[in-house]
């Protein structure tokens, strides 16, 4: 999937995650993660994000993820939504 434009998904409500994506020329995905539980669960959250990127076959993306205590299913879902929106043609 090619990232064609900036896009967002999710909200800053408790239990959710807000994801913004934009195209990038870098080979590897650039991921910035903000979370109150970064120390405890940052590794797992990043793993979930990377797995979703792999499933969606995305490269060349710059992503910011602001976690508000989201469970894994919500993280996967919002990342996938943001990527699909970013991959849509104008």
């Amino acid at each position, binding site marked *: 999937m090619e990232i064609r434009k900036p896009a967002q*998904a*999710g909200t800053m*409500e*408790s*239990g*959710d995650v807000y994801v913004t994506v934009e195209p990038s020329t870098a080979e590897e995905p650039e991921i910035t993660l903000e979370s109150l539980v970064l120390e405890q669960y940052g590794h797992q959250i990043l793993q979930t994000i990377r797995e979703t990127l792999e499933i969606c076959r995305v490269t060349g993306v710059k992503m910011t993820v602001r976690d508000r205590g*989201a*469970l*894994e*299913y*919500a993280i*996967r*879902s*919002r990342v*996938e*939504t943001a990527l*699909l*929106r970013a991959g849509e043609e104008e």
Partner: protein
Amino acid sequence: MKGLRRSMLFVPGNHPGMIQNADIYGSDSIIFDLEDAVSLQEKDSARLLVKHALRKIDFGETERVVRINPLDTGCGTQDLKMMVAAGPDALMIPKATARRLIEADLMVGEIEAALGGNRQPLAFIPIIESAVAVEEINELLKASSRIVAALLGGEDLTADLGIQRTKAGDELLYARSRVAMACCACGVDAIDTPYADTMDDEGLAKDTAKGKTVGFTGKAAIHPLQIEVIHRVYAPSEAEIHEARQIIRAMKQAEREGKGAVAVDGRMVDAPIILRAEKLLQQAKAMGVHDMTDNVNGGA
């Protein structure tokens, strides 16, 4: 006895905090709403959120239903395709007509066949929310063998009729009676329309009782606090359970004595009354308010 469907709680399909906690409120069913609770701009987001939630979260014994968008919209078709694979227990189909249910049945059948495996066939719960749907209800309920219940949509129906929706609900009397009767004839559950005022428990209890009186077997809820009231109305009272036990006891006594007629407190009790008593005790047991073995087989 099939699972209870006394209460069906609507949960916005784009709200993770509500989705993942939905089963703690004790409703018999959860309806993940992709339609009215989700803005047009977020339909794609909600669809994916519910898909992932269904795959990952264990909701225990609670029935998982997804209200998709109307099937004459692009969103509706996309919802249907994604949800068949996600595997809820049932799809709730808005603006239902006999024709749309036949089309949905074909679509879902093709997707299930393509997916293969030992899948439980996806059930349908059509929403009866137009004058056409009310009038063709018998044909509609027979349009698909997947139909397990029907929900009366009072708000949309009154809008279709161009009349006011009121707390008293008199404007729904014909529709309620017709839907409940048809559901009973077709052997499916009849679910009453939600009560909009979430702060009015007394009004909710009266409205729920009205539906129960004409034959509804459950009611939709739009707030967790409504569930307890709905369950209370649909639970048999102690007096009803006591009377039902007396009837069953008298029936068994008559059988032992080889008598054809059954009498309780001087009243003759015939087959339909015995059947009603048996059903009531089964429902009470399923709701956890009665132990069917308690004194029913013994003497007086």
